[in-house]
């Protein structure tokens, strides 16, 4: 059986990335066999996630490990002329460049698109800047958290009765970028394979984020509405929401749309009298009286476990599930069935398990997921075997602070 690690075998990608979206995009390419070489420098060019956590060892920050699995590491000082020369030489031996620096950081170092492509006309360049390369705010600093706010998602991600915006504690735009990024890298590689010419693809993360709010923008542009938070309400199902269950902070979700689902749900609840209740005889009415309906459902769920509600409802064809926690994920029988977690017995951060990917290749075995290589540990191999430099030259550059 073939192995998913063979898919991108032979594809070499230079990664100038920091934080979450860019490095994780590199990880997702490395997971399928691409040789991803991350370029960093102690001279002001370390991935910021190396400093997250309590550990002094820059290779032992859990966030960094998570986002850089399978990635090789080179230490090259880009402020040294030999450093930039080496990057151009590497670009000549690579297929793609992935970067999420602010616009023009690489250009100022003499590593703009034209310079890199002079070394390799087929080179694909994919950029993930927060606000894009062009435009009045392109120099703005962005994080997943404030991009969520800027797009309108934070404003809408809330219960209608809440008196202030909440949104999320997380960085949803990074998650969008780190899947769109590798998708665009492979698409651009397919393109350059056919045309013999590399392209530059620019994914502004703010626009990648806005791409998942498209229907809402159309409500604004077509209807002239200013959409407001809906919480767990959805205009095409009722009951539809999140309900408290037995146990501390335990919840389930239930979503009933069709008449069959409604009948089956009433049967599961043991409340067949509801089927004749005039307030609930079709979806329009169930939507209208959803507050009363939610109270009935909540009354039923609170004395039961979320697990039994999921099992009973789903067996009866009613969409429902546990609201899972991190602990639930690790013991989820479906995820385990998919061999979803890669397991590391031993690492700089101790043993851990970590999600692999949203999809499987049917009939192929999952390729290995490796730990990130230690900072700078691939210098000798790459400079020696790929660029053909001898040990003495490499040692000299080490002394001259080119490789640091």
């Amino acid at each position, binding site marked *: 059986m073939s192995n998913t690690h063979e898919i991108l075998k032979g594809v070499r990608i230079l990664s100038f990335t920091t934080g979450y979206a860019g490095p994780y995009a590199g990880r997702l390419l490395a997971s399928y066999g691409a040789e991803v070489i991350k370029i960093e420098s102690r001279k002001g060019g370390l991935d910021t996630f190396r400093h997250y956590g309590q550990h002094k060892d820059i290779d032992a920050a859990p966030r960094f490990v998570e986002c850089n699995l399978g990635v090789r590491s080179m230490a090259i000082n880009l402020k040294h002329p030999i450093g930039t020369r080496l990057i151009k030489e590497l670009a000549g031996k690579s297929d793609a460049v992935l970067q999420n620096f602010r616009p023009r950081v690489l250009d100022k170092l003499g590593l703009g698109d034209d310079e890199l492509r002079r070394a390799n006309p087929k080179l694909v360049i994919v950029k993930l800047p927060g606000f894009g390369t062009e435009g009045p705010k392109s120099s703005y600093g962005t994080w997943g958290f404030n991009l969520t706010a*800027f797009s309108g998602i934070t404003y809408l991600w809330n219960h209608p009765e809440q008196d*202030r915006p909440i949104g999320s504690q997380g960085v949803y735009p990074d998650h969008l970028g780190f899947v769109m990024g590798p998708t665009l890298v*492979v698409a651009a590689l397919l393109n350059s394979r056919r045309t013999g010419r590399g392209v530059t693809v620019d994914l502004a993360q703010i626009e990648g984020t806005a791409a998942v709010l498209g229907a809402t923008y159309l409500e604004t542009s077509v209807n002239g509405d200013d959409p407001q938070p809906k919480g767990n309400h959805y205009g095409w199902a009722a009951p539809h929401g999140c309900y408290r269950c037995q146990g501390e902070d335990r919840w389930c979700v239930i979503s009933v749309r069709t008449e069959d689902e409604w009948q089956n749900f009433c049967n599961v609840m043991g409340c067949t009298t509801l089927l004749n209740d005039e307030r609930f005889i079709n979806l329009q009415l169930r939507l209208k009286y959803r507050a009363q309906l939610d109270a009935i459902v909540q009354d039923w769920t609170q004395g039961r476990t979320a697990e039994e509600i999921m099992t009973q409802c789903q067996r009866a064809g009613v969409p429902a599930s546990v609201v899972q926690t991190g602990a639930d994920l690790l013991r989820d029988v479906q995820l385990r069935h998919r061999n979803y977690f890669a397991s590391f017995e031993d690492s700089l951060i101790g043993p851990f398990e970590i999600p692999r990917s949203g999809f499987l290749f049917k009939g192929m075995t999952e390729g290995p997921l490796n730990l990130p290589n230690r900072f700078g540990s691939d210098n000798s191999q790459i400079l020696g075997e790929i660029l053909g430099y001898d040990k003495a030259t490499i040692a000299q550059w080490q002394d001259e602070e080119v490789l640091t």
Partner: protein
Amino acid sequence: MSITTEATSLLPGYRVLDLSSSMGAFCGKLLRDLGMDVIKVEPPGGDSGRNEPPFAKGHFHREGSLRFAYLNAGKRSITLDITKEAGRKLLLELVARSDIVLETFEPGYLGKHNLGYETLVEKNNKLILVSLTGFGQDGPYANYKAPDIVGNAMGALLYISGDPTMTPCNPPETQSYYYASLFAAYGAMLSLWQRETRGIGAWIDASVQASMALHEHVAFNYSAEGRVMKRAGSQHQHNAPANLFQCKNGWIALFVTQNHWPILLKVWDGHDPALDDPKWINSNLRRANADYINAQVTSFTSRFMKEDLAELMQKNGIPGLPVNSPSDFMRDPHIQARGFFSAVTHPVLGSFLQPGNCFMVDGKRTGPSPAPLVGQHNREIFHSELGLEKSEMESLVANGII
């Protein structure tokens, strides 16, 4: 910077048969945005996604769903009852002329109608089948139903979303479907690369739950550190001030790291001198005292309009951005200058602004196209391409096949 409605296609010449419902519609849209010819295969009467809100005002019919209009922009539409033999045969003819089939039926549905992977591959041995379902093609939950909220709940994003004193809060629109569609599209790209380099097809088994369950380090945090992430409102888990702060006309999202903290104090006239204590440079300490820090910062932010404060912050290198409503976003000068939105003309809904491609190729953006009407391209595909005669088409219509 220029916006072009002429497709700057990365991948012209590939064809996708999109049999998906709204779960996978965004995957089909992304493949279209990459330049592929995406044919939406709808059951006669139309895809169920056409019934999904929101609707254009006065258009509560199958051409009026704005969700459908966005998710299916630029695709072509044919109608075909693939559960009937004549429809099945036509589908297989199209499969032979396609590169990718995208579907979101419950596991086993295609096989039951004699259209399983093996049957499709007989017609096209390099076919890429992209199957997206709630939980995957097999396993204990494979037949569980998964509307969007179930995807968010089973992937654990829902549990950590919202105010800790309130019910977990689902994100706007159908984010688990959007997100799983991204993974499905990445799977399609890898499969295409594999096909071009090794000459083989593939079957992608994408799962909404598996796509969501890698969010926000939730699983990793528990596994590596034994920590169960909880709802925390808008408060970031590692940093403070990293939250939403009240302004005169709304709110601002601020994210102030160790490096930004001294700059913030410099800009912040009249701050409490106690904050000048160098101990506060430590992000962990600020996070541990987030309530105190946040209250102090609010006394500063509440003096400003959100846009003015964002500009002041950015001028000083601090990543602050306003909390926009969707219409604030659409009006923003930066977004307008980049031409993210441009006008489309929909045959029923008229002209309106719609997002174009979310990426640019060599500095050019492909603008938006309207979604197809139900079966708008039946003639083009069944007659012009597959060569069905007018009478054959009429009989297929009469028999409810198209």
